[in-house]
């Protein structure tokens, strides 16, 4: 295959370089980015990092306050819950469930959603209106309701909830990628590439994909934070991860009865969710503004 250079190869990396530069410029975004990286490291090495086993009950140390309180000790930095389990260890192990689960569901649903959306847009033959109607139907159902339907059918449990959230995320990805691909296909440079004799696959891979990266990346970050929220909400409604799993939402649900006596049991997982979602949202916002800066420059 010959490479006629109407289309410039090196444009792709430089876009990312520019985005990265623009992103670098704002301190808050960088802080969020590194927070997220640290979260990921914690998630991967949670088994090693957690000072205790998340299920281990220190039965002589029930409801120990966090270390900064008068009665707290440094050994149990975030204190213990009503079963004497170390909250720090549970929050750390919880990253596997809440953050890990969110990443997993987003990866799978993103893959499926983008594939369907892009395929539908690339293959003109497929009646896109059918897809649209199906999408509108599914999008009309709030994600939590959709998840509840899946749970109604398959029963409660962590794997059901993962599946439910995955299904709930797919339509968004289909819609975004479908629209983005259609937009890109209408541009001048795609026509050029077509004239250039690119096959459909090559056209998608080399021309379309790099150009839909922006909306997709933004969609991905938004999806991760909404997946975390949904997983935690389902855990909180005791429909998701079942006890004693240290999922952040279900940790908070079991902490309700301690709201008055040991508010830290419910506060710390809440803060963990908050920080994770905040840094993801910040990174998303940062990327968005970087892309925008790129376009206007």
């Amino acid at each position, binding site marked *: 295959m010959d490479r006629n250079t109407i289309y410039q190869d090196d444009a792709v990396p430089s876009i990312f370089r520019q985005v990265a530069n623009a992103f670098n410029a704002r301190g808050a975004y960088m802080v969020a980015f590194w927070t997220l990286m640290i979260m990921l490291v914690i998630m991967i090495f949670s088994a090693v990092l957690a000072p205790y086993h998340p*299920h*281990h*009950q220190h*039965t002589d140390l*029930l*409801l120990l306050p966090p270390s900064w309180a008068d009665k707290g000790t440094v050994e149990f930095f975030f204190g213990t819950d*009503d*079963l*004497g389990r170390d909250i720090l260890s549970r929050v750390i192990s919880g990253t596997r469930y809440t953050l890990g689960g969110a990443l997993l569901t987003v990866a799978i649903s993103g893959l499926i959603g983008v594939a369907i959306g892009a395929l539908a847009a690339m293959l003109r033959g497929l009646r896109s209106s059918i897809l649209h109607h199906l999408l509108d139907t599914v999008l009309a159902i709030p994600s939590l309701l959709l998840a509840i339907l899946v749970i109604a059918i398959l029963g*409660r449990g962590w794997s059901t909830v993962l599946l439910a959230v995955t299904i709930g995320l797919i339509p968004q990805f289909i819609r975004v990628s479908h629209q983005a691909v259609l937009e890109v296909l209408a541009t001048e440079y795609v026509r050029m590439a077509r004239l250039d004799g690119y096959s459909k696959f090559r056209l998608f891979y080399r021309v379309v994909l790099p150009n839909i990266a922006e909306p997709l990346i933004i969609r991905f970050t938004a999806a991760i934070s909404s997946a975390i929220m949904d997983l935690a909400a389902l855990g909180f409604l*005791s429909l998701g991860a*079942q*006890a*004693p799993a240290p999922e952040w939402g279900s940790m908070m649900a*079991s902490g*309700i*009865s*301690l*709201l*008055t*006596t*040991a508010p830290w049991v419910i506060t710390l997982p809440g803060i963990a969710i908050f920080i994770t979602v905040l840094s993801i949202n910040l990174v998303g916002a940062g990327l968005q503004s970087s892309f925008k800066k790129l376009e206007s420059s």
Partner: protein
Amino acid sequence: MPKPKDGLVYCSLGNPSSFNPQLSTSANVVEATSMQLYDRLMDMAPDGRSFVPALATSWQVDPSGTRYTFHLRPNVQFHQTKYFTPSRHFNADDVVFSFRRIIDKTHPYHYVGRSDYSFFVSVGFPWMVKSVQALEEHTVEFELFAADSTFLSNIATNFSVILSAEYAAKLSSEGQRHLIDKLPVGTGPFHYYRYKEEHYIKYRAHKNHWRGRPKLNEVVLDITPNGTMRLAKLLTGECDAMASPLANELALLRDQSDFKLQSETSFNVGYWAFNTDNPPLDNAKVRRALSLAINRDVIMEAVFYGTASVASTLLPPASWGHDGSVAGQLYAPEQAQQLLAEAGYPDGFDIDIWVLPVQRSYNPNSRKMALLIQDNLRQIGVHAHLVNKDWNAFRSGLSKGAHDTVLIGWTADNADPDNFFRPLLSCQAKLAGTNRAMWCDKYYDRLIDLARQSTSFEQRQQLYSQAQSYLAEQMPVVPIAHGMRTQATGLHVNGLNVSPFGGIDFSSASIE
């Protein structure tokens, strides 16, 4: 903030599954209905041993001990509600109707409500009472098959309520029999007004109650299963009184000057039942091993926060049948492991633990208790899986014996020890679906049958001692704790007291 009328809002624990306590042993039903909507022939005196007249003014028993005659109170009026206007006063027909419904399988109302009358079946009531007859307008006679020392206690329980025969006849003629337990009519101090599932029950005062008009015009049971939410509602004034404050929140309540906290030792027991139909739990060695594996001290601290006493047998120490010589269970994981090995399970096995989905004074936090037990069992190689079900599925699953083990308990309706032994572990109870251990043992049944037929107090006491030792050996259930019944009320509420036998009575309560 002005409050309308003289009404009291009580934060209660859960939904009643019916408005007729004859049908169900559930504490929710008893608490919501028994003392409010209905009266009994006689009530249990607070001391738990004697009886006070209620709808019956007096009663006699013949020398053979098999014929009981009750003289009924005249001029007692039934509720007048939107759906029923009584045309006559309470009489012997109502008593006959209420009890025949339970014991007579050919009675038109027997199968209405699809209940197996679990309390009555579990205490053997249908096999105890031969007939109920109206002798005169205000005289009723009960004929028993054999003399029975528990009969009067059973007549005085919260379950033995008197319904209206006239209302039943009206429903029959309209083809609406099923409404009898949904839109209730009784003689009690309050009448049914409205009910919303998972939300509230509203009762209005029965102005012509035979004890006199209750001081409250309206009582609302605000159904709030979550303990912290109940407390929050009490603090914000949404509720005037609340059932069972969480043990860990008692300290906070004590600090509040405008609330009072009442507690009462209660005739209850929280226990861990093994489904003895399922191997390996059919092996008494395995059951004893599991019992030795759990650390009760931690449970007392973590689940009850010290508001309960360790149970050594099913009977609470306050009961006259309690045998103090039966030693409480030890915490001995090594011995447990050894027992398991002897029974042929050196590597342990898998079981499930069904978690009581509601809060009870004998088990304020079943989930937490299950997690503690799960951890204890892991140390002897037994892997426990927690099973969470909603209340209805939980109860129906248990009746069918779908569980391996379950954390549950029992609140006695009267102080007779029979009220613990028979409904919980007899063969009849297995039939009635209240025997969570699915245990049916001829020797045990003989002991408690003998105890019931005996009229000698000492002999009964001795037989119950034997039963307790036998249970400690067989261990179909592991007794865990006797919880205190607690209640918190605002200072503006008067006359609302905790009863040791479950249920709550609003008839003498008032609001300032």
